[in-house]
């Protein structure tokens, strides 16, 4: 029987067809190994992160912000770091916060868990604990983001009416009775609406909220589109992805010395470096291979 000879694959062909499992293995190692090392990476915060930070730092103790925590553990790689950095700043500045969710039913519990974790960390470092209901309140989940956001802009007390929180040692109480909502008649009584989101609730907020300045914390892939709203002045600050979290942590390390400022941004930034480097190398490799293959066929 005649043998079938397969043509010898040159370097170009081999470079253009690296098996996917090999690529995935290299990526796994490139992103996992740096997690075990705490290496400070030089960083220059971008202007949008600086504006976000400065706006928060300009608030006075006792001011209040409304926080839309529209993320769950599926985007925790970025959103959790953003939430943690934000909450650290708010707690250290004594700013009251009302948290609600319109994106996912799991959102409130995820927010509560993160708040508890951050409060425990602050307490371990000797700072006062943020008290549920007194300093912050979790309003819960509101389905139908469009209508809820419109209601918040129209009449915030009606939008949040009936929602209860669970102050420790007390029966469930109406969130509107919380000190966080004392004197709040309109959403304009909050200093900022901050949306920490991995979904389209940022667009919904832009469309429907007119009375209060807004700042967004979004995932890295959403940052280019959201930057539109920052550059047009519709939002006053923007934190995008792991880089944005690392920017906040870099800025916090200057203003909060001696406190824990490192979080998920610092933990993941080195991995991001290696992942991006691998991506760049792979793209260059693919193009070199394409060139070599083209040259060979000429």
């Amino acid at each position, binding site marked *: 029987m005649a043998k079938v000879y397969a043509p010898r694959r040159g370097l170009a062909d081999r470079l253009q067809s*690296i098996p*996917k499992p090999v*690529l*995935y293995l290299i*990526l796994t190692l490139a992103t996992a190994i740096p997690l075990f090392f705490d290496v400070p*990476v*030089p*960083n*220059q915060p*971008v*202007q949008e992160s600086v504006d976000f930070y400065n706006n928060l730092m300009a608030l006075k103790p006792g001011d209040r912000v409304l926080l839309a925590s529209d993320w769950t*553990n*599926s985007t925790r*790689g970025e959103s959790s770091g953003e939430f943690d950095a934000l909450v650290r700043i708010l707690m250290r500045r004594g700013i009251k916060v009302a948290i609600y969710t319109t994106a996912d039913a*799991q959102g409130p519990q995820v927010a*509560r*868990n993160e708040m508890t974790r951050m409060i425990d960390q602050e307490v371990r470092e000797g700072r006062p604990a943020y008290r549920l209901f007194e300093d912050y309140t979790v309003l819960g989940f509101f*389905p*139908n983001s469009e*209508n*809820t956001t*419109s*209601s918040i802009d*129209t*009449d915030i*007390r*009606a*939008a949040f*009416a009936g929602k209860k929180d*669970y*102050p*420790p040692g*007390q*029966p*469930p109480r109406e969130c509107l009775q919380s000190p966080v909502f004392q004197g709040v*008649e*309109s959403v304009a009584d909050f200093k900022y609406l901050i949306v920490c989101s991995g979904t389209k609730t940022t667009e919904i907020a832009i469309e429907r909220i007119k009375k209060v300045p807004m700042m967004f914390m979004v995932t890295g892939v959403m940052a*280019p*589109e959201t*930057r*539109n709203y920052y*550059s047009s002045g519709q939002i006053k600050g923007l934190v995008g992805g792991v*880089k944005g979290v690392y920017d906040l942590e870099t800025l916090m390390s200057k203003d909060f010395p001696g406190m824990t400022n490192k979080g998920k941004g610092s933990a993941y*930034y080195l991995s*991001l*470096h290696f992942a*991006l*480097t*691998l*991506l*760049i190398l*792979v*793209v260059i*490799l*693919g*193009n070199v291979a*394409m*060139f070599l293959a083209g*040259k060979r066929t*000429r």
Partner: protein
Amino acid sequence: MFPVAQAAAPLPTTFWADANGSATLWIKIAITLALGFALIFALLVAPVAARRPIVTGITFLAGLFYVLKWLYPEPIARKGGDGQLPRNAAEGFSFWLSDAQSVVTPVSNVIVALLIGLGLANLLKIHLTRLLKAQKDWGYSLVLLVCMVTFVIFGYWDWITRQGPAGAAMQASRETWGFPQYANDLLFDGLLQNMEAAMFSVVAFYILSAAYRAFRARSVEASILLVTALIVMVSLLGVVTLVDDQTIGRFLVLGPGAQAIAVLAILGMAGGTLLFFRSAGNRTLAAASGVGVLVALVAFILVFRGVALPGLPSDPPVPPGSFANNFRITEIAAWIQKNLQTPAIRGIDFGVGVGLLAMGLRLWLSLEKTGGNV
């Protein structure tokens, strides 16, 4: 129905703003319920030819509320619950619309919640049928049904045990947790959340394989795309941008001779690389261009790094107002994002917004013939 300025005590309310538990609210609920059932019955017995105008009318009225809410000036100085009164009928209508929002919103929420049942029914129908008839992939259907039932049971069990005074204690601390709480925590936080995070992480691998396959400079446009993407990606690497800033800073403090060598080295590397790729099988030329690139690289490194020139600061910063700032990778990337990417996205957004407006208008006015009729 549209209140005008009235006596204040007791404070008048609009049609929508009855007090919770009041007799008028219950009456309105009962009437609405009766009207709702009557409407459903009427739709069922209506002749087929009349159904389209009825549906069109209901669609129009439902959309009209939101259109009016958007178009009609809102009572901007009104403080909720303060008893402020409209001055005239026109302002009274704005109060009416504003109050209606808090009723209409829960109505649509209830409809959305009811639809979850519809989805569940569909899932059960398909997967139970597949399971009972042992059709293809019935194993996956079995897994789905078992998971669905398990999550429902433990989810409700946890919720029921949290009602009442024990709920607050469970919320505050895990010490009071029982079996349903731990089971629910394992299923939701331990399994579901982590599986979702894992699925999102899979995107990273797909990005790598997609970039490797698709990011090729096959045309001029693709080449431009490739170069700008590489610049933006490199600008996120703090180590590379630091080295770049230091390099530019050093270049500025070098003498004219050293600066000339540096520029020639950069040009040599670029030219040599280009020549290498265009050598088209000419081995001598390819070898010569490769050697040229190496020589230029060594010269570059000697000029900038590793050679301590007397009196040269090790990491001179780039002066803030210097023209050289325009050559920093971070500045180039910021320029690309601000002047190319943002306007492009904005332009597409304008088009999408107008398209969405037109689509919404067609749906509201029932101008759209669904079904792709030709």
